[in-house]
């Protein structure tokens, strides 16, 4: 607590009124969750059975939601838990019923692995230049965020995220809603309804394929 106050005092011209307790360095729980996240990712990659893999992507999202909660991103955590752990897992399972239950064995692609490792290393190298987590001097906290906080207070809406999302960034959110519409239209066009597939006889072929693969 004292360390947090000292940090806040050091940020002399900071217009933010009260800072949350700034925990410097990751907590053990965060380390544990991050390790679990990595482990889940590796297991998803290693498993050849698609049913457990689909369920594990839900576990991955749930752990991710826990991490976001620890980092005070409750709105993001909420979305991650609802979309990642909930709906998309069900949609994965729905898609699984249309295909083989296990992945085919493929020879390892070394060049692809090299590309992925290089990209990952470059991204991690890039994070070294980022401000440390919760740093009140970070540009993101000094640029426009104070204005958002003051604006949210002026209109008496406690959840700043909602104010930023629906009011300050109303255009963006409208665009996102149109993206959702586009996704829905795309699926309706591609997969269509039950009737068209039944009459084309595709549905039964898919069902047969799914059973053979099991």
């Amino acid at each position, binding site marked *: 607590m004292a360390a947090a106050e000292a940090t806040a005092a050091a940020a002399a011209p900071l217009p933010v009124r009260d800072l949350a307790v700034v925990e410097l360095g990751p907590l053990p729980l965060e380390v544990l969750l991050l390790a679990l996240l990595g482990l889940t990712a590796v297991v998803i990659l290693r498993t050849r059975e698609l049913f457990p893999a689909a369920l594990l992507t839900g576990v991955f999202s749930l752990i991710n939601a826990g991490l976001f909660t620890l980092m005070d991103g409750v709105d993001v955590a909420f979305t991650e838990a609802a979309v990642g752990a909930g709906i998309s897992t069900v949609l994965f399972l*729905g898609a699984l019923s249309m295909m083989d239950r296990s992945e085919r064995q493929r020879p390892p692609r070394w060049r692809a692995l090299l590309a992925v490792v290089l990209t990952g290393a470059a991204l991690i190298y890039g994070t070294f230049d980022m401000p440390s987590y919760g740093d009140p001097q970070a540009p993101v906290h000094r640029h426009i965020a104070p204005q958002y906080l003051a604006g949210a207070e002026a209109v008496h809406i406690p959840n700043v995220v909602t104010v930023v999302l629906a009011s300050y960034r109303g255009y963006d959110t409208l665009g996102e809603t149109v993206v959702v519409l586009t996704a829905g239209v795309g699926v309706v066009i591609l997969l269509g309804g039950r009737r068209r597939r039944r009459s084309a006889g595709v549905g039964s072929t898919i069902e047969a394929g799914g059973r053979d693969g099991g």
Partner: protein
Amino acid sequence: MADERGPVVDDEPPMRMREQIVLQVGGRLLTPFILLFALYVQFHGDFGPGGGFQAGVLFAAALVLFGLLFGVDRVQQVIPVSVSEVMIAVGVLLYAGVGVTTLLLGSAFLDYDALSAEHGQHWGILLVEAGVGIAVAATMTRLYYAFGSLHPDSEPAAGEHGE
């Protein structure tokens, strides 16, 4: 069609949730509370975490849970495919309509202060969040219909076979 398949002899656990009495009773109990929680998240988004997007997904999740347990055709009796498709557009139009309204009131697009001097931001945010919630819930439900209708476990009622 269900008879043609014969008994399931897979080693995989067959996804026959419609025969699981514990899941059915639990799901039947949970569904109204999930729907209520979705509405809470929708209208409490100004004060706590949440908002239209999360609420829409939760609402659809309740429908999906019910559909997994009792069949997608039971859900479609409540929200038909056509309704889900129309509601996607209704949500987006509600959002954009708020913007057009503020334009007609002589202000900038999506400038909620034009709606009311004192409560403009509250009303505007409430309306656009409702638009987001409707669009997301309808899209997720329609996605589930698209996938769930192909699921072997959700055979249509006997009357629909002839089509």
